[in-house]
């Protein structure tokens, strides 16, 4: 037996490899069944990062379906309400490079908006109530409706169904209490070198002025 192996190195190698393959294959197969991961906590984590406007601009009915889609390989740049902050957070979570927002899904809005119903024009059709994904509109049939501003995510899904076009998207007003300091003008790091020439020229001008 041993003689055969020493005399036939090819056969012995094949047997050894085959045996190893069988053993490891069995171990791996067992492991694959035994340690199968159920569920996908990643979906939860992604859902946490999405802005929960439920606006559907990503092409999915709600934030969670989109989170699921991202797990399944969809690009992470389809969320205009979240904008670059959300994309950056997602990229950070998934450890990929942050792409620019896919504008086919909409533009990132600078100012946050809320829906506002011009109440004397409202006919009480309840269509906006049915359209609101977060139940932020109060009202009943043939009664005037109104928006709960604190709950409105600004998704504007209620605007289109309104038969009398009495819903406006208004920017959220920040009074003196909501005022905040701006970041100082961008510092001179390498990334800022990529800013188009005009922007750089303006900072240069500032420096000149200063």
């Amino acid at each position, binding site marked *: 037996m041993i003689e055969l192996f020493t005399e036939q190195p090819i056969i012995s190698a094949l047997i050894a490899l085959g045996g190893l393959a069988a053993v490891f294959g069995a171990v791996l197969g067992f492991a694959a069944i035994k340690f199968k991961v159920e569920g996908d906590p990643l979906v939860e984590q992604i859902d946490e990062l999405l802005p929960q406007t439920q606006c559907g601009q990503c092409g999915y009915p709600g934030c969670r379906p989109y989170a699921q889609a991202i797990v399944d390989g969809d690009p992470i740049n389809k969320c205009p309400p979240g904008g670059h902050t959300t994309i950056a957070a997602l990229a950070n979570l998934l450890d990929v490079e942050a792409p620019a927002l896919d504008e086919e899904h909409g533009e990132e809005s600078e100012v946050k908006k809320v829906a506002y119903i011009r109440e004397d024009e409202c006919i009480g059709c309840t269509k906006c109530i049915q359209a609101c994904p977060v139940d932020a509109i109060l009202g009943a049939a043939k009664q005037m409706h109104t928006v709960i501003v604190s709950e409105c995510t600004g998704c504007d899904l209620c605007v289109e169904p309104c038969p009398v076009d009495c819903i406006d998207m208004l920017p959220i007003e920040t009074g003196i209490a909501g005022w905040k300091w701006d970041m100082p003008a961008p510092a*001179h*790091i*390498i990334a800022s*070198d990529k800013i188009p020439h005009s922007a750089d020229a303006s900072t*240069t001008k500032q*420096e000149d002025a200063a």
Partner: protein
Amino acid sequence: MAFIKITSPHAHKPGNTGSVMQTVLLATLPGIAVLTAFFGPGTLVNILLTSLFCLAFEAAFLALRKKRIAFYLKDYSALVTAFLLALALPPYAPWWLIATGSLFAIVIAKQLYGGLGYNPFNPAMVGYIVLLISFPLEMSSWPAASPTLSDGAQLPGIIATLQQVFLGVPIDGYTGATPLDLLKQNQSQLISDLYANTSAFNQGRWAGAGWEWVNLAFLGGGIFLLYKKIFTWHAPIAMLASLGLLAALFYDGGSSTSSGSPLFHWLSGATMLGAFFIVTDPVTSAVSVRGRLIYGALVGALVFIIRVWGNYPDAMAFAVLLMNFAAPFIDYYTKPRTYGHKSGPKSQA
């Protein structure tokens, strides 16, 4: 009428980065003077050339990056790099060596990382090490200090210097072993014998002719910077302490295998230049007080280890670069305790 709108504070302590750098440059002057006194005008030529090259490279790269050249040159940081590189290089080094060193220091080590404040490694040391590992011959040919010159020989004049630097005309019988070289090559002599028999030592007082005075001059410059509060005492003192401690531990009374006394280590090679001008480089060192103590102590330990057991006679540059790597790590674990918090770093995820 509208008034300008600006964040507090409205008062500002006088001084800026440029003036800090200028003070540092000022503090190198005693060292430069002593180097020139002992090794001739080579050092001055070095400084001149590195300054020229560094400023040129800096300006060129700022232009490439579309930055305002005058504004950034005014921070004097390129000049500080130039001075440190020049002081680290052996005098009378060929011009192309200096140019290459400046290129690596300014372009690769500094501007490619984003310029002042963003470089993780000390630019002067990067330039120095690139040269050291690429051109070991040129980099190890230190001139002999004036007291050790053989009879009749004298320091080269300015003409000879320029010829050596630009045309490669060698100056005869001029290079000599540094005290650190001598100690490294010492095989059989007791330290006391070495001191007695070698001109590099017996012409000097504590740690070899010329070098001890160079180091003392840099120490003086460093004390001046401490007095000016350009940096805190933590990193240099920790570095000198750990170097001295290790030297004392391994001194063994001066046998033939001895690694030299603490005094010898303090006053030879680039110890004081490193301790007060390189270890204290704020950009590449640790930031907190504890961090600087650790950083300095580890630099000192590495200097000793490489000097004694490594392949190079001096080790300042390697030690500093190695610790530059470790600086962010040290920062992370030496975050000071914030007011009103129980312990230091609270969430070390």
